[in-house]
């Protein structure tokens, strides 16, 4: 059972990392605009603005 000495803290640490990650996403406003994130990925920002393009 010696394996528990490092496995248990490791499991807790991983869980805690997840929680901290969640809190960070919440704090940085990533749940404010869920639909926006889905569509913002579509435009090609690197292409010149002036070129007319069909709507997505």
């Amino acid at each position, binding site marked *: *059972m010696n394996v*528990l000495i490092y496995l*248990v803290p490791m*499991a*807790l640490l991983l*869980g*805690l990392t*997840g*929680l901290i990650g*969640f*809190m960070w996403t*919440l704090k940085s406003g990533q*749940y*404010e*605009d*869920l*639909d*926006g994130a889905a*569509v*913002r*990925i*579509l*435009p090609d920002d690197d292409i010149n*603005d002036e070129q007319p*393009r069909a*709507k*997505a």
Partner: protein
Amino acid sequence: MAEIIDLSSFVEHKAPGLAHMTLAVDGVGCAGCIRKIENGLTRLPGIVDARLNFTQRRLAVDWRDGEIDAARIVKTLADIGYPAHPFAPERVEADETRQARQLLRCLGVAGFAAMNVMLLSVSVWAGNVSDMTQETRDLFHWLSALIALPAAAYAGQPFFQSAWRALRSRALNMDVPISVGVVLALGLSVYETATHAVHAYFDSALMLLFFLLCGRTLDLAMRRKTRLFAGNLASLKAEFAHRFGGNGELVQVPVSALRPGDRVLVRPGELIPADGCVVDGSSDADESLVTGETVPRAVGPGATVYAGSINCSGALTVQVIAAGAGTLVDDVERLLQKATEAKSRTVRLADRAARLYAPVVHVTAALTAIGWLLAGASLHDAIVIAIAVLIVTCPCAIALAIPAVQVVAAGQLFRSSIILNSGDAIERLAEVDTIVFDKTGTLTLPEPKVDAVSVDPDILQRAARLALSSHHPLAVALAAEAREPVPYPGAVEEPGRGVRVTIEGREARLGSKSFCGLDENRNDELQPAAACDREASFIFFTHAGRTAAIPIRQTLRPDAEAVIAALVARGLNLVVLSGDRPEAVEPIARRLHLTHWLAGVTPADKIAAIEQLKARGRRVLMVGDGLNDAPALAAAHASLSPITAAHLTQAQADALFLGERLMPVLGAVTLTRRARRLMRENLALAVIYNAFAVPVAVAGLLTPLIAAAAMSGSSILVTLNALRARLVRDAPDETAVTPRTERARTDTAAGATESGLKSGLKTSLELVP
């Protein structure tokens, strides 16, 4: 228009020299829109940041003071093609946003803790049937306590606070048994751990919190979404008024910034922005939105005009008066207040369930403890079993039963063009057995339409193009018929009389009878029907010796007949209450085969009629759009308004419907009835779960493993049942073309949901006392 626009009431200053404004933006539908809006704005000088929230359809703009102003930003957006209006967030909304963040944080903590404790618990359960030593089990239990206690203290706050508030006001709510259950489960587990016992309930307590928080989050998310949409609509509809400044110059201000004593200019075709007294000018006021009366009233200096009416013919200068005693809006407000107080007394299904539930649970637990003591068990064992009962009955499934259905139903209603204003509207809409309709703007379309059949198409096209140059409401209706919306160059409007222009070398005139050179008192041969057609208003057109009287009338919503027939087929009683004249109401009622109608009804009469229906045990759904309907909307059991309704009216309605069709009314009734049936099923499922779990717990056979399985099992079952609503094909959509096919479609759609509907309908009818 080189007019000054004053939007300063919407601009905030978060830092010196840095201005911030939130705008509700209309017409955003795709990724391209985001880019167009954000890039279009950031290109302007002085703009620091522009970010569009696609979910909320709101734009946050920051700019450096002095380099650009709010009006320029709004104008730029309009030029890009997106009408926008500054948005002043309500207090409620800010509160809910804060609450939603807090709930999400609690949900995160509860989720993390539940996962980790479960990890340890599963090991213990596995170890208990194999070779785990007592030391290892104790270590795992202590580790669980280390995670569970602080996590529950944090994530349980929403429940503890609410339970404490309820207890302080000597009441019971759902949160009381929840809080008691969680605290006792944790306390017992710590005691058991300290005494090296085999079972600890840390995982049950945390899982309970996690599931309950899911329910709360869903519930709040739905309420926030509907409030967001309602808020956006309200600000997009916000009107501007032309106010005279100190030096007689005109300034455009939002109507909300008008104060008593201000003088405003109302041009022909514009809405009168506030209650007031006419100082200068004379015109006709179309008060159909306020009173339902479709014939305009002549107003001159000294006359009182009401907010929401349309100025038809001449420019008016109006002095804004305080909503003092005796004005129409004041009357309406007073009636409203009374009606709203009465409504807040109806109890929601969830609260009714909670009121019943809490005492039953506590009494069962107490009886269990006493029973075991009498049967000779030790005090420790009796308490452990009683707490197990409390844990297992904690209303996990009950707390999810209703929010889960509400979220699914709100989404479905939204797809059927219905926007909910209040969360408990679903339950109330489902209960109605009588529908009271307003006529103008509800059964009929809000804007009058040209009766094109009786007019030569060539003349109609010329008249329509000429009408583009006028602001008169009748001309606006006529202009909608123009195939190419290009106004004739050089058209001259004579306020209050008509428009004239030279086409192909000869003068064309559009306007009143006398303006077109016809004898005012003669009902001439050109339109014999005109004399007896009292429903329609006429606009006259003359060009090159040809004359035409173009009838413009209130038209029924395109699917009104089919929807009314379908509602009658579902056993609903329909009544029409209109503020309009009997001769305008009667033909409409006849066409819809409605026998119960009343005309010339005042707002107070409408309430009286609804009260009468209520006294006979009817649950009334009021559908109306006028300012005169607002008190009736509040008094009725449930209420619906078209999106075109007056501002105050919209605020009162439980739900708003979009579009030209009446179909959403039918959709609202069928969808909410289905939702209500699902809510009841869910509550029944939760009760069945308890019927199995409670005896096991009372018998003292409950282990943490069984508790965990039962709890998550019932929660998942309830959620799946709520999602079942999405499997049924959505009721009638908005794409039908002609009334005839529409009728056929309605019938098939009705058939598809009929079997499901019948039971729901029957139960809800049986419930009416």
